[in-house]
Each structure stands twice: as structure tokens, then as C-alpha cells.
């Protein structure tokens, strides 16, 4: 079932939580709503579920306007961040709840309910916990029961609010993989909220990046990382090195630092955004860039050696970060305090306010 969100505005008092949000979620996709806290992602999810009423705008399921429908009638599955299991009911009773509160004429009989609960417990691999109470379960188990409970009604839409937020890293990874498998098997349309970039990029077919109540960008994970459309998305997805300067002809300069752009550009104050893997470090400045840096710290853990660098003779709001391979690190053997020069291969130029960046390449020059 596809979900369409049309021009949703939502206020909490005078605070505008959602600003004119429109979004199209195709049938059967797994969508991640990603953003920092306060960006409105949970509010949007709750508006889709019907737990919050928007001041204006519409929500459509499969082309049908569900805005006037009560939560109860929207028939979506919802998984809460803190599980929201009924604490006085056993696991089996929790899962059966949705079936047991159905109007008498639609309600399956006791034997059928029991059978369905059994199947769901098997699906989440927790059949042995049927008679436990929520307080006796671990976080990961609780979340799986919450999922089973949400799926008992066979919803065609599953909404998850930070489903893995309260779990430790290992359990998180397991559950993530498991949710993806479940989604692929059952073919419902899922929307999940997260503030974890890695989680969003790994799990989703499409990622919706939100900030301050607005959608910044909707894209598949690969394009999102490779071609961010705004400064915010750039900053939010992974580290970025920024060189801000004034443009004089093709030269972008600030203090002792300068970069010769490969093509003509306009703008007064412009920023060059560089991903850590788009920058090389050398002992000598290159012909097209003079960006002196001092090595501040060296982190050896991981697939790459990560160097944190401070600009020399020019300014940057945040320290620069560049990754080099272990092989290169062993050859070069840099020390803390050493001076080196950054050489950009590819960069993203922001020279017009509110416009996507212009990607530049120095490779092959």
C-alpha cells in the first residue's frame, strides 16, 4: 500500500514541527526518516499513523484520503521506541490484544487467535517466552514482541519509531538485518524513524533526510551520500571538510590557503565541501591547491588511518579529517605536529544560497 503525504503542516503551540511536508512512498518500500532530534521525523510518522492531527494537509493510503480516519480505523502497524508493551499482560496476551479487541462479528475464535499468536511467536523466534511478562524480557526480546504484536493484524503499512534506539550495538545490528528480511518476505510498506545515519543508509530503499520540520532530500542511500543537495545533508551524513573563502577569478582564497578551481565560478563567499576520501595529503603543496595543515591526532583503529588536522594560516570551523590507508601510513609515517598539504581530487562548491552544490574534479589535470 503506497503512502502519500500532501502539504502537511503541524504546530505544537507556536512551534512549527512540520513545514509543508509532501512525500510519496511507493508500495512495498522500506523508507528511513533520518534527521537530528527535533527535526520533525517522529511527528511525521505519528501524523501518518493518525496519532497526531496535522493543522493542514492530507495523508493518503493507496490513493485514499485517510486524513479524517481515526487511528483505530487506519489499520497500520506501529512499533514504539520504548516498545509500549502492556505491562500487566503476558507476551501471548500482548500479541493477541489486537485480535481480541476486534468487533465480535469479525473476531476470530479463541482457537484461531491462539494459532495466530503461536505463528507470530514462531516468526519472532520467541515461542518459549509466551507466558513471560514484559518486565522479564530483554530489550531486544521486547522489541521483537512489539513487532509481532504490530503484525498480528496483518497491516499493510508498518511504522517504526526509532525501533532500535534503545538497544545495544550488537542486538541492533541483528534486529536490523532481521527487519530487512521480514520486510522482504512480507511485502508491507515500512517507514522507520532513526537518527543514526548508518542505520538509515544500510536499511532503507529510500532515505528521507529531515531538518527543522522540512524535508532536505529524498534519495536512495547511494545518491544521498554521493550527491548531497544541501549543506545540511552534507554535514549530517558523515564527516565533511570545509574550506570557505573569497573568489578571485578562478582562485578561492582565505588567509594563506587557496585552491585554484578547475572551472569558472561565481559568488562572493563560497564554500568548498570535501569528503575525507576526496582529499589527499602530501609533503608539498600541489600546483592547484595550497592548504597547509598540522596533524593533531592519529586514529589507527579501523580499515583506514584517520588523521585529524588543524589549518595553518587559515581558518576552519571544525578540524579537518582525512583517511589514509594503513599501507600509506606505514610508508609516510606521519607524526603528531607534522605539517602537510591537502590536495583535493573532487570537491563540492556551494556558491549560491539554497542551491545544490556544483561538483568539481581536478582529476586528470
Amino acid at each position, binding site marked *: 500500500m503506497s503512502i502519500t503525504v500532501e502539504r502537511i503542516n503541524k504546530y505544537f503551540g507556536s512551534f512549527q514541527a512540520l513545514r509543508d511536508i509532501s512525500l510519496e512512498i511507493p508500495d512495498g518500500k522500506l523508507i528511513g526518516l533520518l534527521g537530528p532530534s527535533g527535526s520533525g521525523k517522529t511527528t511525521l510518522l505519528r501524523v501518518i*499513523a493518525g*496519532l497526531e492531527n496535522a493543522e493542514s494537509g492530507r495523508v493518503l493510503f493507496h490513493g485514499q484520503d485517510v486524513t479524517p480516519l481515526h*487511528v*483505530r480505523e487506519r*489499520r*497500520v*502497524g*506501529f512499533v*514504539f521506541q*520504548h516498545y*509500549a*508493551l*502492556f*505491562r*500487566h*499482560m*503476558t507476551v*501471548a*496476551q500482548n500479541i*493477541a*490484544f*489486537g485480535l481480541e*479487541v*476486534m468487533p465480535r462479528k469479525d473476531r476470530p475464535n*479463541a482457537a484461531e*487467535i*491462539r494459532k495466530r*499468536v503461536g505463528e507470530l511467536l514462531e516468526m519472532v523466534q520467541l515461542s518459549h517466552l*509466551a*507466558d*513471560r*511478562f514484559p*518486565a*522479564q524480557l530483554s530489550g531486544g526480546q521486547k522489541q521483537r514482541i512489539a513487532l509481532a*504484536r*504490530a503484525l*498480528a*493484524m496483518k497491516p499493510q503499512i508498518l511504522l517504526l519509531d526509532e525501533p532500535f534506539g534503545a538497544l545495544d550495538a550488537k542486538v541492533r545490528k541483528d534486529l536490523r538485518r532481521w527487519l530487512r528480511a521480514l520486510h522482504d518476505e512480507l511485502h508491507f510498506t515500512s517507514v522507520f524513524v532513526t537518527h543514526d545515519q548508518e542505520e538509515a543508509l544500510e536499511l532503507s530503499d529510500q532515505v528521507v533526510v529531515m531538518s527543522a520540520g522540512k524535508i532536505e532530500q529524498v534519495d536512495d542511500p547511494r545518491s544521498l551520500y554521493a550527491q548531497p543537495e544541501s549543506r545540511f545533508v552534507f554535514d549530517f551524513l558523515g564527516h565533511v571538510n570545509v574550506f570557505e573563502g573569497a573568489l578571485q577569478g578562478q582562485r578561492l582564497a582565505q588567509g594563506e590557503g587557496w585552491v585554484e578551481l578547475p572551472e569558472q565560478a561565481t559568488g562572493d563567499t563560497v564554500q568548498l565541501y570535501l569528503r575525507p576520501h576526496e582529499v589527499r595529503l602530501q609533503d608539498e603543496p600541489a600546483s592547484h591547491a595550497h592548504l597547509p595543515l598540522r596533524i593533531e591526532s592519529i586514529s589507527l583503529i579501523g580499515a583506514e588511518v584517520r588523521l585529524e588536522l588543524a589549518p595553518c594560516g587559515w581558518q576552519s570551523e571544525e578540524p579537518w579529517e582525512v583517511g589514509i590507508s594503513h599501507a600509506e601510513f606505514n610508508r609516510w609515517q606521519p607524526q603528531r605536529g607534522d605539517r602537510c598539504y591537502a590536495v583535493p581530487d573532487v570537491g563540492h562548491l556551494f556558491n549560491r544560497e539554497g542551491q545544490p552544490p556544483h561538483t568539481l574534479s581536478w582529476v586528470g589535470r
Partner: protein
Amino acid sequence: MKQYKSSLRVGERPWTKWLLIGTALTLTLLILVIPLVLIFAQALSGGVGTAWENLTDEYTLHAIGLTLFVAALTVPINLVFGVFLAWLVTRFEFPGRKALITLIDIPFAVSPVVAGLLYLLLYGSNGWLGSWLADHDVQLMFAWPGIVMVTVFVTCPFVARELIPLMQQQGSEEEEAGVILGASGWQLFRRVTLPNIQWALIYGVVLTNARAVGEFGAVSVVAGNIRGQTNTLPLHVELLYQDYNVVGAFVSASLLAGIALLTLLIKGIVEWRQSSQRSPEINPSEVR
């Protein structure tokens, strides 16, 4: 090996400790235990027979009946009111919500006598609403409806006060989960909300009942002490005492004391249940 004196925690010097414990015990004995024992001792001072005679006295029986009747009306009214109020202030955001939470405490802050006088002023035959009611042949003051009204007023915070912190702490997520799963309002209340608040609710009801049975000040203003008509048990105690019927007064008083002890017992059990609720024992489940 060198011997070290075992170190003491703050305030744990033996004489301080025992002085404090001794003081507390003496005060408890003087203020609570001795008076309580004396009530029963006085009631039985004339022998069991006399006590029984006093207990089965026509007016005493009427007072007991009226008191129970008032409690039987007050408790359900405040049960519904308290749940409604707690639900309102913990599940909804609206202007004046904080003010309402403060207002709930007014009956605690105001002297019951003042409450009684206010009701008399408002609903008495010379009062603003009372004169209109009198024209329509409705008498509230100096009759049982007046007693119920002031008792409801005096006891209305108990249930809400017990529920509000608990419901705030539990939040509304479980209810939201229930609605999403398709539960109707009533199903939600009966199957999700009520089981979560039941012990706090029972606790609130027990306190409401204790206060409803024992209320003196407000009731004495609006009841008018008509023997055999508007005399509740606490008023009856005073009346008997003023009649120099000490044994009779103490027999009635011992009934009230008995109710108090019973309240404490139930309170203890409920508190124990509440604390053990966090690790619920395994019940045989309906669905397996």
C-alpha cells in the same frame, strides 16, 4: 597486626542513634498508641453488656447507617470524578491544565469548617441557590444530600492525587498502542488503563472511604445535628459526650477507630502489592 576502630557512618554514634530511636518510640506511644488503646478500654469500661447496649441504641444504629450511606454515595462519585480528572490532566494538554492540578488540592488546603460554611451560604434556605431550591421544595442543607455534598468536596482529591503521579510516570504510550491495535475507548480503559492503575485506585478509594466516614468539621456545619436524622457517627460521638454518656461516646469512637485500623491494614496490603507489581508473578495466561 594493628587494630583499627571500625569507622562509623555519619549520625551513627551509638548514643545519638538510641536517643533518637527512644524519643521516636516514646512520642509514638504517647501520641498514638496509648490514646488508641484508651478508646477501646473506655468503650469496654462498663463491661461488654453496657457496650453492646450502647452499640445497639436506636440513635447509634441510625448514625452508623447514615455514615455508611454517605460513604456509599461519596466513594463512587469521587472514584469516577478522580479517574476522570486524572485522565484529563495526564493525557491532554490544554490551557489551565497546571492550574487545574493545583485546584484539585483546594479541599486539602481549606479547613473543612470553611467548606461547610460555604455550602451553607450557597445552598442554605437563605443562600443564593438555596432560596431558589427552597421555592421548588428542595432542601439540601440540614438533610442527607448536604452531608453527601460536603463529604464529596472534602474527599475529592484523594483518588486523583493517587492516580496523577502514577499515570504521568506510566505515560500514554500503552494506550496509544492499544488504539492503534483497534481498541475502542472502553476496551482501552478496561483492558489497558485500569489494570495499570488498579492498585493506586484501590489505595485512593480506601483513603476516600476513611475520610468520608470520619469527616466531622464540614458535616457538623451542614448537618444540624438532628438526632436520628442527620447525625453521622463522628457527630454522634460528640453529642453523646456532651450528654455525659462517656461509654456511649467511646463505643461509637471505637467503631471509627476500628475503621481506621482496617484502613491501615488495607493500605499496607495495597502498598505491598504495588511494590511487588514491578516483578509480577506468572499468572496462568488466557492465551497459550
